[in-house]
């Protein structure tokens, strides 16, 4: 069983399981699936600074913090007990393109030359960790949700603003990949 679960899971298994999270949370306790809200609750709990946007009863929404805490623990279990022996398979064309840009490590889930602890205080770290994080945090809150809140919960509930958001996530992602990444790699 453990051996079976240790292999990388196919997309249709993952898709169904992720999709089932929406009804699971609704039926467990009328909770709407959306993960970027956790970042807002952290702000409200730790640094409200009198800002109206962070003045609300975050304790009532603390289920979301339990949820993301669980995700972190799940990440640990998946890479220890259920660790896969095979490296992440990367499509040849993506690998070639990334090699040309300057990515060196292809052995794990993420390239350690960009996301290893040694890059924290470098220019690479500034772009991929600091700037990337700022865009994720600012962008998702401005957009009122992320992939989970808009692309999964929102689309499943046929909310058209979520469709617009999802299309714009993808446009931003394509621009980030084809325009911003080459510029960053030229700088670092």
């Amino acid at each position, binding site marked *: 069983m453990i051996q079976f679960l240790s292999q990388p899971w196919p997309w249709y298994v993952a898709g169904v*399981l992720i999709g089932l999270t929406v009804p699971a949370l609704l039926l467990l306790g009328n909770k709407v699936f959306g993960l970027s809200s956790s970042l807002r609750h952290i702000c409200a709990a730790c640094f409200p600074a009198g800002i109206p946007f962070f003045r609300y009863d975050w304790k009532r929404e603390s289920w979301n913090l339990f949820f993301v805490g669980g995700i972190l623990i799940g990440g640990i279990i998946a890479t220890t007990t259920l660790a896969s022996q095979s490296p992440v398979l990367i499509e040849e064309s993506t690998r070639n393109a990334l090699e040309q840009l300057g990515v060196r490590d292809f052995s794990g889930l993420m390239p350690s030359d960009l996301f290893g602890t040694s890059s924290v205080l470098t220019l690479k770290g500034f772009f991929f960790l600091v700037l990337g994080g700022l865009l994720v945090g600012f962008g998702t809150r401005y957009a009122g949700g992320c992939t989970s809140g808009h692309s999964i919960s929102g689309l499943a509930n046929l909310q058209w603003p979520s469709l617009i958001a999802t299309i714009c996530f993808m446009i931003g992602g394509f621009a980030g990949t084809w325009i911003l990444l080459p510029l960053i790699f030229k700088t670092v």
Partner: protein
Amino acid sequence: MAGEKITDARFRADACEAPNNQQQAESFAGNLKYGLTGVFFGIVFVKAEIVSWFRIQEMFRLDSFHMYGVIGTAVATAAISVYLIKIFRIRTFSGEEVVFPRKTFHRGHVYGSLLFGLGWALTGACPGPLFAQIGAGFHAVLVTLLSAVAGTWLYGYFRGKLPH
């Protein structure tokens, strides 16, 4: 910003976008079940390599169907579930009526989403996967997470001045 007065329901300060609509209060033990759901979710994230920076790159380079397959199947599964809950009026385990929040369009759905997309391409992560990446042993992503919290805070601070 301090002193701003926003009465528009679209972006009222207390309107959480992924709300807890349960009338009954949750206890600490009650919240643990969401923690467990999260554990399960984190395992799926890592085992299906959705939190892999390379998988996100493949998606934006149109080199692999994997992420499109995951998201497409997830949306279909969730949509069918939501539809069934609606037509059979299925209630929550504690007997409450399920609430489906409606979203009203504002310009942030465009501007914010474009900015998030750029960040998604750089970090290879949405807010949820950030936690899974840290759990998977990429401790530098803690910097990304703190930065994302800072980004959220900056939005809260400048919110009154941004076009919505």
